């Protein structure tokens, strides 16, 4: 099965898979660079009607990694206060719960937070550590994912 097929078999994402980074909103694309992207999906928009009140995650991006495909889950969100850490924590929690019931759970996944606007945290910020322990990379203004993964 390809990533495209797995995305299309996921309830709510049937018709949102796009090649490369095309699924990303124009303003967000400027902040995200990834080598060898295979495809992407705007998860937030696609699941809005099924989960209107959920803290939905923004994007799925597939990357070719040797013979396999790796999935990067990217959230573009403000990073300017403790409340934003709480918001992203909720989103990550939601993403993982939702993901566990989809065919996409079988992919090697990475989780990223891209700061929309200025990032007010540095890597030493203690409250970020709990999110890092859950697998989220600390927020960055510009995300670059090389071919071998970040």
């Amino acid at each position, binding site marked *: 099965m390809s990533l495209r097929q797995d995305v299309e078999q996921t309830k709510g994402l049937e018709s949102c898979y796009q090649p490369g980074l095309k699924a990303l909103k124009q303003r967000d694309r400027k902040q995200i660079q990834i080598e060898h992207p295979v495809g992407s999906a705007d998860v937030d928009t696609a699941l809005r009607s099924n989960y209107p009140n959920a803290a939905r995650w923004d994007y799925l991006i597939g990357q070719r990694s040797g013979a396999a495909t790796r999935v990067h889950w990217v959230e573009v969100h403000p990073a300017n206060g403790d409340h934003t850490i709480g918001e992203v924590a909720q989103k990550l929690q939601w993403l*993982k719960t939702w993901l*566990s019931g989809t065919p996409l*759970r*079988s*992919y*090697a*996944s*990475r*989780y990223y937070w891209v*700061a929309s606007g200025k*990032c*007010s*945290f*540095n*890597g*030493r910020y203690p409250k*970020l*550590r709990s999110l*890092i*322990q*859950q*697998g*989220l*990379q*600390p927020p*960055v*203004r*510009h995300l670059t994912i090389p071919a071998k993964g*970040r």
Partner: protein
Amino acid sequence: MNTLTIRKLGPISDAAVRFGDLTVLVGPQASGKSIFLQWLKLVQDIEPIKKQLADYGTDWERDPSAFLSTYFGEGMEGTWSERSSQVLVDDKEFDLKPRLLRRRRKGTRAERVFLVPAQRVLTLRDGWPRPFGDYRSGDPYVVRAYSEKMRNLMETELSRNPALFPRANRLKVEYREMLNDSLFSGFELNVQRVNAQKRLILQEGKKRLPYMVWSAGQREFVPLLLGLYWLIPGAAVSKREDLQWVVLEELEMGLHPRAISTMLMLVLELLHRGYRVCLSSHSPQVLEMIWAWQNLKQNGADGGALGKVLGAKLTPSVRKVFDDVMQKEIRAYFFERDKRVTEISGLNPDAKNDLEASWGELLSFTDRANRAVAESASEHEAEVA
């Protein structure tokens, strides 16, 4: 002096440093930070340095190489090459040789730069500052001079009262409380006279602790405290009139983060009193304060916000210090052996320049730890699923 440029001198390939009110130098060991800071003193205080060496009978026989060995310490004379080394002060060449060979005039002016060396812990032997002449001639001048100044201070201004800390007319009461909490834990620092000899002791009631049993942090801090007493003479006098610069090497040595915060507050006090301060540091906490300071300034926050960063008790007197220093200019530079020095003043975690984003590599370890833990957590989850 606003800029100092040093090229091809020891490990320094090209260092062009524009000073702020506060300037911080970071970089690995032996990258030239200390040499740079000693030159900062030498270019401004060459006459008083020559005078002190002459007063103590150090004869360098008008040989620049012997002078450099005396000033920087044995074996360091080779860092300077007459042919290729270059030192510029505000873009004007600083000609070392003619200045060294120039005869001393009468009434040499007072020193402008007060340098607290990284080796300050060596200045106290058996709990008392060693005199200048007690050192070998190959020991760095800045260590000998600092030691002598502290000895002199103890024998004159501080000699009447055996209580050194806390001391009513030295440092604001708020700082004394912070120092007590973070460093002295209820002990007093006193001068004890044993027969004709004096020594520093930490005392709590009848319990007296001599120098050798103090904690590493206390041994590091007490020479610094004496330096601060010199720089902040008393309530009525804001600063030593002639001194313009304070150079403080590795203020964090041996100190817990709480005590580092107290030291940083004292650095702000020095800035408030009109000194320009230059630090070298290996502590992310020092850059963390500057990062917070710059961001707070940009966001229009007042001094109280910076006070909170340092855990200060914001009395009106301390608040005044923070409000004042918020306007000061701060600069930071990264030194690396045999490479051009990089300005990293922005400390922007998103900077395209990796050296600025990693705060001169001080965040590199944290960054690697963060990434490794996040990656392993996501991989572990996938395996469990």
